[in-house]
């Protein structure tokens, strides 16, 4: 029997909206301050879409960069996954709109909704197609445009989120490289901790849902904080164990960027030093599914991540969902 192929990330790209919203700008929108936001989240500014920018337009830009770096033409893509919870419109999927923009006509295109864990879910899904030999070239985009669904009158949540897109090309890689282990987790019993209650088929848009501000993100921050720290530690240790590695083997961890205090609390428990943690939340806030591909792209551009480095990726989000992976770069 032939050995199963290994799947890896061979290139990355990102796209961020032009408009920058700083904490000082927010002081004009809600009762808040730069000091308050920085102390509680580590965020200094975020990007928000304007003009012609949309979920699919950011995706297209990030994808073109990743494709070019991989030396791949759009028509060579077998599967196009867009991990997002904020598609341009309810129907069709953002992935099909991105497919049309790229003219990736050979690809099977679909969206994957797993809250902020979307990118890691997409990575594990893509990995399966490559390992079984069912696909060779996968374009995975982690993108979210949360600014239209953030409640700009709720100072506890509106300061935390931002818009952005990150893309990766996944391909078969040689044995010992690429994704060494990955795992997806969910707990639907905690669905109400982070939700947009209206706008689906159960509670479609009516005057009442609009008046109740039901189309905006509602979040129980403290509960998610506790949950996040706990599962980031557990799931990272779990995927490391799956591939016979230890935390001391890690070069870097690329955690979901939701709150710097969650990241610090989890990484302290994992025994990781500050230098090992990839962080860019101060510039972008929580971009949901885009955080991990964007932080990876920046670390690669800065020359931080080198071939042979061992990386852990870990995320959590609405669902609740969470996921982790170990990659040998």
């Amino acid at each position, binding site marked *: 029997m032939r050995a199963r192929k290994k799947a890896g990330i061979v290139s990355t790209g990102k796209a961020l909206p032009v408009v920058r919203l700083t904490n000082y700008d927010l002081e004009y929108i809600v009762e808040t301050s730069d000091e308050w936001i920085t*102390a*509680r989240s580590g965020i200094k500014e975020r990007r928000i879409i304007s003009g012609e920018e949309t979920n699919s337009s950011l995706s297209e830009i990030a994808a073109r960069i990743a494709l070019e770096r991989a030396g791949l033409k759009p028509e060579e893509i077998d599967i196009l996954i867009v991990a997002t919870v904020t598609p341009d419109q309810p129907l069709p999927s953002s992935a099909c709109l991105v497919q049309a923009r790229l003219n990736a006509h050979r690809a099977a295109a679909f969206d994957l909704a797993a809250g902020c864990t979307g990118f890691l879910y997409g990575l594990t899904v893509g990995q399966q197609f490559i390992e079984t030999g069912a696909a060779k070239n996968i374009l995975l985009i982690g993108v979210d445009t949360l600014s239209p669904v953030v409640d700009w009158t709720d100072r506890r949540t509106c300061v935390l989120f931002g818009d952005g897109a990150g893309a990766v090309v996944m391909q078969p890689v040689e044995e010992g490289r690429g994704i060494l282990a990955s795992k997806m987790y969910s707990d639907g019993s905690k669905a109400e901790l982070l939700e947009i209650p209206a706008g689906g088929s159960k509670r479609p848009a009516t005057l009442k849902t609009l008046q109740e501000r039901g189309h905006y993100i509602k979040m129980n*921050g*403290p*509960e998610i*904080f*506790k949950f996040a*720290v*706990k599962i980031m530690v557990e799931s990272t240790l779990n995927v490391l164990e799956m591939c016979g590695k230890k935390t001391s083997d890690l070069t870097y961890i690329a955690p979901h960027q939701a709150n710097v*205090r969650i990241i610090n*609390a989890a990484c302290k428990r994992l025994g990781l030093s500050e230098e090992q943690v990839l962080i860019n939340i101060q510039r972008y806030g929580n971009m949901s599914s885009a955080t991990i591909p964007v932080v990876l792209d920046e670390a690669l551009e800065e020359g931080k991540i080198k071939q042979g480095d061992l990386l852990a990726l870990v995320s959590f989000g609405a669902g609740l969902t969470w996921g982790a992976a170990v990659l040998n770069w």
Partner: protein
Amino acid sequence: MEVFEKVKSLISEQLDVDEEQLDMDTTFEDIDADSLDVVELVMALEEEFNLEISDEEVEKIKTVGDIVSYIENQIS
């Protein structure tokens, strides 16, 4: 008093305050602890004493003394 000493040392470590500043009547406001500080402290207490402190209990906790008596009740 053992619990009090442990709680004091945890608070001092977590919230970066001097142990000397802490007595049974110290409130979270006294030491400038925000809501996330409280969450982080609760997590540290849960790990140290191997117990779970529910949200409803956390709401009731106002002073260092409240923490100490809650923990003493749980572990006795």
